[in-house]
C-alpha cells in the first residue's frame, strides 16, 4: 500500500491490509492531527485499508501565530 505524507512530502510502502487506526499508530501520528484521504474522499478511522490502496495522510495543523 502506498502512503503519501506531507511536510516534507514523501511516500512510504506499508503492507496491507491494515486498519486506519493501526496505520496511524504505527507511523506514530495523532489521529487529532491528520486526515486520511483516498481519491479525494475521507476515509473513516475504522476502515480497513487493502494492500493495493493509495492513500494520503494529510496534516491538519497549521501555524501562524497571529
Amino acid at each position: 500500500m502506498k502512503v503519501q505524507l506531507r511536510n516534507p512530502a514523501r511516500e512510504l510502502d506499508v503492507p496491507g491490509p491494515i486498519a486506519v487506526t493501526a496505520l496511524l499508530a504505527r507511523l506514530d501520528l495523532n489521529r487529532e492531527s491528520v486526515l486520511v484521504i483516498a481519491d479525494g474522499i475521507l476515509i473513516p478511522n475504522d476502515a480497513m485499508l487493502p494492500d493495493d490502496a493509495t492513500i494520503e495522510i494529510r496534516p491538519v495543523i497549521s501555524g501562524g501565530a497571529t
Partner: protein
Amino acid sequence: MKCRVCRGPAIIDVRRHNANFCADHFLRLCRDQTAKAIKEFDMIRPGERVLVAVSGGKDSLACWDILLDLGYDVDGLYIGLGIGDYSDASGDAARRFAVARGRTLHEVDLPRDYGYDIPGGARAARRVPCSVCGLSKRHLFDQAALDGGFDVVATGHNLDDEAAVLFGNTLRWQTEYLGRQLPVLPARPGFPRKVKPLVRLGEREMAAYCVVRGIDYIVDECPMAEGNRHLGYKEALNAIEATSPGSKHDFYFGFLARASAHFRPEAEAEQETLRACPQCGAPTTSDGVCAFCSLVDRAGGAVPVHLRPRGAADPATVPG
C-alpha cells in the same frame, strides 16, 4: 462507523462530540456550529457587510464558504505577503475560490503596494516573521474594512487556534493579551468589529469540511511557520485531546465563561491610551507613528516612486 443523525455510513469521527457523521450531516454540523457561535456572541447582524480575511488556507476558505451558505453578504480580502511559492499558491487558491463562488476578492500586495515582503520586513524590524506578518495583516484588514464600508471583519480562527493562543498566553501570564482574547472585538473608532465565527469548530473539522466540499485549499505550510511556538502548543494540546476528548473546548470556553472577565480591565485601560497615528490615522498606543507605519518606514525601502506626468500637480499624498 455510523452517522449519529441518519445511521448511514459515516466519513468522520468528531470525538469531542462523541459522534460520527456522514458527509451531509457533517456539513450541517459545521454550519450549525458556526451559526451558533454567531448567535451566542452576537457576531454578525442581518444586513451587515462582512469582509473575510482570506489566506488561501482551509480555515479562511471554509469560513467564507460557510458564511455564504448561511446567507451573509461576504467579500474576501487577500494579502500577498511576498513569501515565494507559498504566496503564489495561496493567492491562486483564494482567487479560484472567489471565482467558483462568484464573489469579490479584494487584494493588497505587500511588495507591490508597500515595498516590503515578510522576510525583508522581519529583518528590517528585527522581529520574527509571524509578528511582522500579524501586525501587517491586522493593519491592512482594518484599513480595507473601513475604506470599503464593511461592518465586520471575519477571520478563520478555529478552536485549535484559540486554544493554542490561550495556552501560550497563560503559560507566560500575558494578562493584557488574555483580556483581549475574545471571539468578538467590538468596533471602536478606527477599528471595525472583528469576529471569529469558527471558534466552535476544530482544525481537523475545517480540513475535513474543505475535503468534503471539494475546496482546493493550500495544504502546504507557510515556510515561516516552521518551528514556531504556536505549532508546538497545538501539538501539546492534541496530545491531551487524544486521551481526553473535549479538553480544548473546555479550556477555551471555560476561559471565556469564567476567567476572561478578570483580565478585561487591564486590556480596556490600554485602549484608553490610544491616539491617532500622525502618518496614517490608525489608532496606536505609540507616541510616534503606529507600528505599521514604522515598519513601512524601515522596511519599505523599495516603495514604488510614483512618477507623475510632466506638468501634473504635486499629489497631496503619495498613494501607499
